[in-house]
Every structure is written in C-alpha cells, then in structure tokens.
C-alpha cells in the first residue's frame, strides 16, 4: 500500500482529459489556461525535497525552523525500525519526514509545514504528527496563516496505532485553528495518500494541488486488488480530484509562490479590518 506509490520514481504520462468527461475548464486568468496547458505537456511530476520546497516558497533569509531536535523513537519495538530511520536520516540529511517553521511569502508571514516524500516515503509517525501539531498551535498563538505541503504514503506502519492517532491529533489541532478564524492552505503534491489524505490534506480552507499529483485515500494497487480491475487513466490525479470537487485550484510549481501570496494577501485584508474599517 505504501510502497507501490513509490516504486516507480518517474511514471508515464496519463492524460486525464482522454479518460472520463472533460473537466469543467473555466479558467478566466491567462495563468490558469497556461497551467492546464502545461499540465498536459508535462511528462512527469518531479518530487522535490522539503528543504528545496521551502527555498522555492519562503523568502530568502526569513525561514525559522521549529523543533529541529525532535526525533522518532521505537515505541512498539518494531523490528528494524531504528535501522530504517537511521538510513532515512543518512539519505536525506533530515531527522524526519516533515520540516516546520515560520517565514515569509513575498513579505507576508506564515507558519509552514512541508513533508518530505523521500524520508521513509513521507510516512506520518508520531514525530510528523507532533511537529505539525506544534506548528498549528504556533499559528494559533501567533495568529499567523498556515500552509502545509503534503507528500506522503500514509501512516507509518512501524509506529502502529500511535501513527494512526496522529490523524486525530493534527485534525483536532486544525479544528482549533479553524475556530480561531485563521487561514489554512493545503498544497497537495505527489503523492498524497492514506492517513494524510484522510486528515490534514483534505482540511484546508483552500486546497491547491500541483498538476497530475497522485491524491487518494487508498493506493491505486490496493483499489485494483479490491475491485479486481484496472483503474481508469487519470484516476486519483489532481485534475480528477478537482473535477470531483475536492481541490480548489491546480497550480503549476512556477506559479505556486505567487498564488500563495495572492491568497495570503486577500486574507490579510479580510477579517475585522475589512469592511468594518473606517477607510470605506
């Protein structure tokens, strides 16, 4: 379930527009048309590390990382887990599958969490859950908008039920964030599946996705085993999810920073200081 998402590092083009009904295309800005166009052209979606992602999104020099010292433990005494962790750390030069912190996007402050698809397949153990929850609580405390980039094969098997409970933990923290009226933008990148899809990935006030990212609850192979037939082309891709009503907007990587900034800007103007201010 986890592994089959990650076996093929680059996969062939699947053109969803051939598959089912054509998506409702009603882009009104040239960028959107460009995005759709580019999505079609793209041969594959490159996965990038969380560290690189932060560099592409957060203004240079503004990033302050949270909880750099948090490190996974082996609470279930799961065989080989410490070794797996060690090799993931060595391979990625990171301590866990998520980086959290605060920084600025074109000058606007936010709390950000970015998952790392190459750290144990971006799986969510308790450290991932804890770091994200602390980041959400920071956003509440500092009244800063929250952005999370998802990339995950789901819950981390090696931490068993504790891993499952991180879905509850992050969702409960997001519920409190929502009650405070603070913006949360989820950005779904390839691949976003399992427990992450069934928790914070789908809870954004606004949900963006990179083109052609795999997004689903169950992995494609599990579904194929269950239904005993091949999945249609384009199934569980960003474009499919948008057609099905679960994604607000597909944004190509080149436009992501500007789009996030535009959304942050609108939300920085909203709230108490919107219509009730004396300037109108």
């Amino acid at each position, binding site marked *: 379930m986890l592994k089959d998402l990650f076996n093929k590092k680059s996969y062939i083009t699947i053109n969803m527009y051939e598959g089912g009904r054509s998506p409702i295309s009603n882009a009104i800005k040239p960028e959107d048309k460009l995005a759709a166009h580019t999505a079609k052209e793209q041969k594959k979606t490159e996965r990038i590390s969380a560290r690189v992602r932060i560099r592409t999104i957060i203004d240079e020099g503004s990033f302050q990382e949270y909880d750099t010292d948090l490190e996974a433990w082996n609470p279930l005494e799961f065989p080989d887990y410490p070794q797996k962790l060690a090799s993931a750390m060595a391979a990625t030069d990171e301590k866990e599958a998520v980086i959290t912190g605060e920084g600025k996007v074109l000058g606007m402050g936010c709390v950000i969490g970015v998952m790392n698809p190459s750290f144990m397949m971006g799986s969510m153990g308790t450290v991932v859950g804890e770091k994200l929850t602390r980041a959400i609580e920071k956003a509440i405390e500092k009244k800063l908008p929250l952005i999370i980039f998802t990339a995950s094969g789901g819950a981390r098997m090696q931490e068993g039920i504790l891993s499952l409970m991180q879905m509850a933990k992050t969702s409960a923290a997001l519920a409190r964030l929502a009650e405070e009226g603070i913006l949360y933008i989820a950005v779904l990148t390839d691949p976003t599946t399992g427990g992450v899809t069934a928790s914070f990935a789908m809870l954004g006030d606004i949900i963006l996705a990179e083109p052609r990212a795999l997004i689903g609850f169950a992995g494609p192979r599990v579904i194929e085993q269950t239904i005993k037939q091949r999945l249609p082309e384009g199934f569980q891709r960003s474009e499919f999810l948008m057609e099905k009503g679960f994604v*607000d907007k597909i944004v190509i990587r080149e436009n992501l920073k500007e789009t996030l900034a535009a959304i942050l800007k*609108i939300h920085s103007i909203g709230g108490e200081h919107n219509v009730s201010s004396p300037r109108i």
Partner: protein
Amino acid sequence: MYHHLEFEKPISELENKIVDLRKFAEENNIDLNNEVNILTRRLEAMKKEIYSGLNPWQKVRLARLQERPKALDYIQKLFSDFIELHGDRYYGDDGAIIAGIGMLSDIAVTVIAHQKGRDLEENLSRNFGMPHPEGYRKALRLMKQAEKFKRPIITLIDTPGAYCGLEAEERGQGEAIASNLLHLSRLKTPIISIVIGEGGSGGALALGIADRMAMLEHSIYSVISPEGLSSILWKDSSLAQRAADIMKLTAQDLLQLKVIDAIIQEPLGGAHRDIQVVTENMREYLLGELRILSRHSPQVLLDTRYEKIRSIGAWK
C-alpha cells in the same frame, strides 16, 4: 455579431439609413449634414422611447440575450486579484456556478455567481447556467468560508433555474436549494445580490438571500419562466409573451413589490452596449451599500435580514 431583437428593428433600420446617407453624401460629394443630423436626433429619440417603454416580454428577450454580459464579464471588471475556487467537497465542481475570492476596491470579498455560457461551447460546460446540487453546495461552502474570514459576499444571479434533470433530482436539488436558503439567512457577514440577467425561480433564490438585493434595469426575476406559466395556464408554451405580461417579472415590478431594494441603470439599449458603464454603476452600488452594511453588528445584520425576508407577502 449582435443580432437585433425584433423591437430593435426600427432602430437598426434608421441606423442603416443614416449610414447609407453618409455614404451617398461622400460618394457624390454632396453636403447632407443637416439631413444626417436630423436623422441622428430622431434615432436618439427613438431609442429612448423604445428602450424606456419596453414591455415585459421585450425585457425577457433582453435579459436572455446571448450578447448580454455574463457574470464572468462583470467579475473580470469589478474585482482585482480574483481567484476562482472549485468544488463542493462532496461530489463535484459545477461549471454553472462560479465562486471565488477577490478585491472590490480595497475590500476583500467572496463572489458567487451563476455563469451562462457566452457561446455554445461554454454553454455546454456551464449547462446554460442551470446548476446541479453540487453547484449550490459549492456556493454554500464558500459562503461559509466568507463568514469565517469576515468577508462580505456578493452574488450575481443569472440562471434559467436549477437544472431539472435526473441526476439533479438524485443528488437532492431540493435539499441543496433549501439548505442554502436556511444558511444564507443566518450568515454573519453582509450579503449583496444583483440579478444581472435572468432570475429563474428557486435556482436564483438559492443565491439571493441578501441584505441588499438589486436588479440591473433590464433583468427579470420570476417564480417560473413565462414559457412555463403559459404552458400551465393555456397548455401552450408559445403564449409566453402573454404570460410575461401578467407575471410582474421586471426589475421595475419587483421594486414596486418591495422584493428588491434598487435598480441599477444600464446604458441605452442594454448592458451589452457598454459593459463599462454597467460595471461602474454596479461598483458604486456595491461600495455604497457595503459602507452602510459594515456599520452594523452581525446581530443587527441578521435581525434586519430576517425582518426583510419576513415582511414579504400580502394578504387580506
């Protein structure tokens, strides 16, 4: 190319005559300026007379005109930094309803609108502006989001009605509209609705529970289409014109019935003649009313909204 409506024929004939006269004068090098001026003045008078005296059916024709600006035309002009948002989070994304966030002058707003197609191709993807339940549910999702972020909501209404199809019924067209009516009546943020073309029954109302309700001068709003009414009354949908005459569906009728608060002026001949003028009139109306509404607390807003809806009706 704009296809004239039949009641506009005298105008276009006169327009053509003026063009011919000018051409003749030029080709033959004769001074016909005087004649041209007289005809031009007569044309202006004729336009004023025709467009200010439109009967209900003529309004219906104008409101439904293919060339009439659609919601996206206004959205592009009214709002800066507009970002369209998609999907109901349950089933799908309905192209018949556009929803998004943007700036009206320096106010962040949520915009929800019916979108009719501007050509056949777009009409197919928009289902001619007739939403399915997922359209209303997208609208409600984003209206609640607007409330959360304390953004005023602006809705633009232009629909023949909610879609009357098999799948729409299966997925609860009635529930979707009802749910919007209920929730909109209690949203703690200002709501302003403008009918820009056709306000078709419950499908329009589902975006039309508002603190301020306006209609463009040549738009219509009714409980059923004239075709529908005539087929019920006389078993003949071709008597729609006769039906239109009795049903009180023009902006002017609705103002008199106190269902709407204001009529927004269109240029002579209709919104499509000069969308810029209409847009500026809309902007002025929206900014003016938002200024007033923003002075009220959410509770006053809700109480006033309730009283407004509550008071509609007439009995012995």
